[in-house]
């Protein structure tokens, strides 16, 4: 791994259960894990959802590059965790001597840019039903690689809740609930408490394309 001996003053240690940062907290640092696992969680409704579990040498909190933006999730140490803490002002110093880390951060940024662009595409749709359908298309595009083998023809199973869909569509949960029920009545989706099945993803692709302005 990279030579990080000179960076000890950026080192931080967290004990099991300790919060590294909380969702909604303004953030100005991002972190490189050196040892231990970090749980990334979000509280949705009344449930704490695990979004990810990260370990060395992964990077998290990189959205701090957007100064002043609140954290979008909470990071908690699963066990004793050692991290290097950086911010916009000093990350270049670390990257300079550690091309592996720079490359990793570059990849994280490419993914974030894509995610945000895709999100933008959803939000610019006028039709609320199309927004919801497009959320599933986005999830299909990004999850596709992981779910291979589980796919059955045009059917897709998404591990998301109504709250998640509302979050991505930038709509309120009640409205999304109504529209999803409508889709369900049309037998285009099956609605469960912890997952949603889209019966025919191509149907949604056609639907969204017809609603997207050229």
């Amino acid at each position: 791994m990279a030579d990080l001996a000179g960076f000890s003053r950026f080192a931080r240690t967290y004990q099991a259960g300790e919060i590294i940062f909380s969702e909604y907290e303004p953030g100005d640092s991002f972190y490189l894990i050196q040892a231990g696992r970090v749980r990334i969680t979000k509280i949705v409704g009344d449930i704490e959802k695990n979004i990810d579990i990260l370990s060395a040498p992964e990077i998290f909190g990189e959205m701090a590059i957007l100064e002043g933006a609140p954290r979008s999730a909470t990071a908690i140490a699963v066990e004793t965790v050692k991290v290097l803490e950086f911010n916009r002002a000093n990350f270049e110093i670390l990257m300079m001597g550690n091309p592996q880390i720079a490359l990793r951060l570059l990849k994280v940024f490419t993914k974030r840019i894509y995610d945000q662009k895709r999100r933008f595409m959803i939000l610019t749709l006028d039709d609320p039903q199309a927004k919801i359908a497009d959320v599933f298309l986005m999830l299909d595009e990004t999850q596709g690689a992981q779910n291979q083998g589980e796919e059955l023809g045009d059917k897709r199973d998404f591990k998301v809740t109504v709250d998640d869909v509302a979050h991505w569509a930038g709509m309120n949960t009640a409205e999304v609930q109504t529209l999803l029920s409508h889709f369900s009545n049309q037998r285009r989706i099956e609605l469960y408490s912890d997952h949603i099945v889209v019966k025919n993803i191509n149907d949604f692709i056609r639907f969204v394309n017809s609603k997207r302005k050229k």
Partner: protein
Amino acid sequence: MPKVGTYRANSVIYFQGDLGDKIFVLQRGRVTLNYNDIETGKLIREIIQTGEFFGVKSALGRYPREENAVVLEDANVLAFTVPEFEAFSMSNTRIIIKMLKVFSNQLRHIHKQVENLMENPSAVNAETGLFKTGEYYLRSRMYSQARYVFGRYLTYYPAGRLAEQAGRYLETAEAALARYGDGKGPAPLAVAQSASAQAGSSDAASTAPQATAKPQEGAGLSDVAKDYYNAVSLFSQEKYQEAMKILKVILETGSESEYVGKAQFDMGRCLFALGQWDLAIKHFTGIVQSAPKHPDMSDILYIMGQSWEKKGDKARAKAFFAKVLSMPGDDDSSARIKAKKALGALGGA
């Protein structure tokens, strides 16, 4: 080894929507990237400079190409596979850093565009969100986590709408942690119910103001902290004039030395960012004289050096950069590294 491809004028290197794992560098000729702006739909033509990389994001991120790469004049293009690019980048960190800067700017830009579209009632505001996160942990008897979150709430929103409640919950969490330990004891919020929910709907909001006097740190300091963070946020948005207005108030009020010191430094940064070299130098000179032990002294001296350099006074610039290097402290602080670089660029110490 990356391969050189030769393309004739009017041919296309890749189409929007293509899946491709190649990263290109233009060696000779003319290439444009054509795409529609996601906001306006307008067709954008981005000319690639000789030596410039393109197709980087889609190849590294493994998503479809986002533009048509069209050859305008016969071109030689070097094509890297992702592993080749990775190997190349290990010995060319500068290129990666440059890309990181470009990408982080793009990320900031697109994030702002998304934010602009997100003005809707379902978006939870950060203050309420933070408080609710604390409530969740308290309700789940995760006392140390609750303590952390309410502590943060009081740091960022010391005079906030829910500050009084946050203070009480913080005490509850601390008491429960001491008495029962994490995950044990009676659920403290089952009785208390959710204050954030009440505050939104009933008269709880109107009773909140009496809290402002209560937080231990005192309301004056709290406002200063809040103002200071606002100013920093404005600075990052390049709204220097507005940031300066707030900083000026903090300096005039002068109620908390920690923030006054920070505000002094940031005031100078604003002047520098606005191209007011003389004023920046004057301002920083004042700090050097009145607060020689200022925690940001290395950075202050570095920016003073930069200001002199901008004014064309290389000798003075060098003297300041050299002073940064003579300051005690870490060898690899950002100011030192930057000063060393600047000194090198000016022709040595």
